């Protein structure tokens, strides 16, 4: 992969599959292990689902921008939609007993479980989510491992 690559995608279910496939390919090419590739691809899939369904609400005139950046220490994935912006205060904890049997609401939780850093930036013109996975052997990963 080049140092960075970006895709502008329609608000469709196909985009969700394409985003996952691209994440799997890029994470594999970088050299992440099988489990980490699965974690990255699932986090990207969940993020893309949020962008297509909850952000853009399948609107044909709204796009999802997906970008991958390889830094010396990290794989940085950014997904941006053109929706109304997520309400961070309204995200329930899916592990709370009263939410355990709910059929939705686990996407952001899974992203946070699988990635090293998840940054969510909502605005009135859309939500941008940054997913960061430290590259094994980098100084960032080493710093965590030594803690």
């Amino acid at each position, binding site marked *: 992969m080049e140092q960075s690559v970006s895709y502008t995608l329609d608000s469709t279910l196909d985009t969700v599959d394409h985003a996952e496939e691209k994440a799997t390919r890029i994470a594999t090419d970088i050299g992440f292990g099988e489990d980490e590739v*699965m974690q990255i691809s*699932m986090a990207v*899939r969940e993020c893309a689902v949020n962008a297509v*369904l909850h952000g853009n609400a399948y609107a044909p005139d709204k796009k999802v921008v997906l970008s991958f950046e390889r830094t010396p220490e990290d794989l940085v994935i950014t997904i941006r939609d053109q929706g109304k912006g997520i309400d961070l205060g309204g995200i329930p904890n899916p*592990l709370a007993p009263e939410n*355990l049997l*709910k059929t*939705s609401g*686990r996407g952001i939780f899974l992203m946070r479980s699988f990635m090293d850093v998840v940054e969510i930036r909502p605005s009135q013109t859309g939500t941008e989510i940054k997913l960061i996975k430290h590259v094994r052997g980098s100084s960032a990963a080493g710093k965590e491992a030594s803690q």
Partner: protein
Amino acid sequence: MSMKLSTRQVDGVTIVDCSGRITLGEGSVMMRDTVRDLLAKGNKKIILNLGDVNYIDSSGIGELVSAFTTTKNQGGELKLLHLTKKVHDLLQITKLYTVFDVKDDETAAVKGFK
């Protein structure tokens, strides 16, 4: 690989053999329709055999929860069989592993119904 489902009867229990991916879209819809159809026909002892399910996302997890609660609300019982490591780990992370009745042995799972 898309989702495939087939059902079979063993000693009054319906076993749904699932393979492929349970994800948003076709996979989740197939799972939902199959369980609802079984319940509508009076089949209330259900085992979802997930041994060949290689991928599940949060929508798929939601469908498993929906299948479980819908069956329970209609007086039935639903068990999960042969979880792959990926599905097992996901259910652990989401604290659902202890909510579901998870089995590793089909014969024991069939005999375990009330």
